[in-house]
């Protein structure tokens, strides 16, 4: 058993995993009854990745789920009724029927950011959440999930790069469920372990058995603590298996039978139940107590969702802009004076250690200042270059006379604008043909 968890916490984890499983079983029945409006994506077999990772977060931490992380939402405090109503597009849903599935936010209470269907976009967004939290002194960690498929997007790489450069307190759980819709991992990436992507970003990473909820929790907890200690971001690869198709419509015939047979006995819920019994953390009575509570809660919430109406049509026209309907207020946990002048004053120069570029190279690079690769300047030269550019600016503000053709161009000051001014002789304007067809072709009335 995990030393970090008490008996009650073990049982709470079981509660969330079983709640996740039975909630989705009910939704599958609702889908067959045509009561689910859109698609239904199953997280069967992946519950441990959602529940175990989210359980490592504090209430003040922020979380953004993907489509198969309903378990994470439940752990963060979302009620099953919100999941039912979202899928059934009811007016009582968190988005009032404007969006479905796990696509909803709760910024104020549970600190949840909605995903969008375009994969990877949450990585930069949650990087921003992590950076803002640090800036405000909130000591929070941001956590999000990405699939094996989504880890090939540009947004994923851009977000990871920025998070790494800023050492953002961000935990990215790479949920490797072997399949991106119908494409197996081996056809996407020539890597055995997707966690290896972390090497390219220069960040911490770990691989964990995604079907062992205690292992996922322990790894996530360590990652969260690394982030809180300033060692983030962390990429955590959880190896698991998607046990259904991409969505309800997909029978997943492309998955080899042997693969399913391999993973079936590795069901995370069955494994955890066995684990709880082996470690004498519960008995049959305790289990049935929890199961009965789950069924009771789900029955109540499902009835609520089924009885809820669809949103009124006029809602479609409302809420495009925030016209003061939301109060936007940052929650400061550090003195504001620290980020205001004079405390915030700094020397605007890069400090580049252990590097010396030949002076000749710098001179040659100078006219291309617009591309601005200052990392190649040792501090002194950079400061000198900056100082030298100051008076130039004032001259360049007025359209200065272009240097004569025979002037020594190499000694000319760098332009303050990225572009040249073009030829002084504007005679080509006179050769301009008549203006393009703005005339009414029918002629005048």
């Amino acid at each position: 058993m995990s030393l970090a968890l008490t008996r009650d916490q073990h049982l709470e984890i079981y509660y969330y995993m079983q709640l996740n499983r039975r909630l989705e079983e009910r939704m599958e029945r609702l889908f067959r009854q045509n009561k689910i409006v859109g698609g239904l994506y199953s997280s069967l077999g992946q519950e441990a990745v959602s529940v175990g990772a989210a359980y490592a977060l504090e209430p003040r931490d922020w979380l953004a789920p993907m489509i198969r992380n309903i378990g994470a939402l439940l752990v963060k405090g979302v009620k099953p009724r919100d999941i039912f109503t979202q899928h059934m597009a009811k007016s009582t849903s968190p988005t009032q029927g404007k969006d479905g599935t796990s696509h909803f936010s709760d910024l104020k209470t549970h600190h949840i950011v909605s995903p969008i269907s375009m994969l990877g976009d949450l990585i930069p967004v949650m990087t921003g959440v992590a950076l803002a939290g640090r800036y405000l002194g909130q000591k929070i960690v941001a956590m999000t999930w990405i699939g094996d498929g989504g880890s090939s997007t540009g947004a994923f790489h851009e977000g990871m790069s920025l998070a790494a450069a800023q050492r953002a307190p961000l935990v990215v759980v790479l949920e490797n469920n072997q399949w991106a819709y119908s494409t197996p991992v081996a056809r996407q990436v020539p890597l055995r372990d997707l966690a290896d992507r972390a090497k390219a970003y220069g960040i911490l990473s770990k691989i964990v058995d995604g079907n062992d909820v205690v292992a996922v929790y322990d790894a996530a907890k360590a990652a969260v603590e690394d982030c809180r200690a300033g060692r983030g971001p962390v990429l955590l690869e959880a190896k698991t298996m998607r046990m259904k198709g991409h969505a309800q419509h997909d029978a997943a015939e492309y998955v080899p039978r042997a693969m399913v047979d391999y993973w079936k006995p590795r069901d995370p819920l069955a494994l955890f139940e066995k684990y709880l019994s082996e470690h004498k953390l519960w008995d049959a009575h305790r289990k049935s107590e929890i199961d009965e509570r789950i069924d009771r809660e789900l029955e109540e919430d499902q009835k609520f969702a089924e009885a809820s109406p669809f949103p009124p049509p006029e809602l479609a026209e409302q809420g495009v802009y925030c016209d003061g309907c939301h109060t936007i207020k940052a929650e400061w946990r550090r003195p504001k004076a620290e980020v205001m002048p004079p405390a915030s004053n700094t020397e605007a120069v890069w400090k580049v250690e252990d590097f010396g570029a030949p002076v000749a190279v710098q001179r040659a690079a100078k006219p291309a200042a617009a591309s601005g690769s200052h990392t190649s300047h040792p501090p002194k030269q950079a400061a000198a270059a900056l100082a030298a550019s100051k008076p130039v600016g004032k001259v360049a503000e007025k359209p200065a006379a272009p240097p004569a053709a025979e002037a020594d161009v190499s000694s000319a000051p760098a332009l303050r604008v990225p572009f040249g001014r073009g030829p002084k002789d504007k005679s080509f304007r006179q050769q301009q043909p008549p203006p393009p067809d703005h005339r009414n072709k029918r002629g005048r009335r």
Partner: protein
Amino acid sequence: MPAVTMLEAIREALFEEMERDPAVVALGEDIGVYGGAFKATEGLLAKFGPERVMDTPVSETAIVGAACGMSYLGLRPIAEMQFMDFIACCFNQITNFAAKSHYLWGAPVPMVVRGPSGGGVHGGPFHSQSPEMYFVHTPGLKVVCPSTPSDAKGLLKSAVRDNNPVLFFEHKYLYRRVKEEVPEGDYTVPIGKAVVRRAGTDLTIISYAAMAHTSLEAAEQLSREGIEAEVIDLRTLLPLDRDAILASVKKTNKLLVVHEDARTGGIAGEIAAIVCQEAFENLDAPVMRVTGLDTPIPYAPSLEERFLPNAEKVAAAARELAKY
């Protein structure tokens, strides 16, 4: 008050907003130590420090995505695109995430994405574009295109204080070419309000950004020929000031729309549709437009001149219109 350039006015707005509110932060490529490709953010880092003025990797999606995330915690980030052409790199983050966040999830995104756009400076096809219309077609965004230093400053302040994602297109041709005194003290210019730059009775010319100046230049030429054009500067493309457009057309009965963005799908088409539907009986002539060509914006000065509208082209179209 000494006259300032549009660039200086924008810089003033950035400084003043960051001084006013510690929730305002800036991020972008080369905006810190270097001060931005056009020096719009020069001095910001020295004053406000690296926590508030962040030099980022070359990752437009990460810049805008991070700005979204920051805004969720109550910050008011200002993201710079080194050139607005590069906004195409983070199209998804803006149109699918930021724009829809409030409507779908009730999660406002008080973010500004600002940067230089527009042609006339020989920047070539990837440094001269006017990509504003991609975003005017996206509900949830606000699209601002100022043409004067005092508008740029007041509108940028409004954008920072707005609870919605505002895309702020700074026309780079105007950065150092227009100078004027800006009002003293803290002031804002409302987003979504057009302004009549020149009153006239014979026809209306609607434009924005650099083309507002081109239209005024044309109007002066026309005035010498006895044609009095009313020139409207839209200032904001989304939301569009329909009232100002219709009021002027109902007065002059003739409309010419000028923009340097490509013709097909430009704002002129939308304005023409509004006017035809709402003021058809007031029109004495077809709605005309002088616009950029339906081509990429080319590099050579002779080609770029051909692409861009100028005062002669605008005046020629206006003369045709006036004959009706």
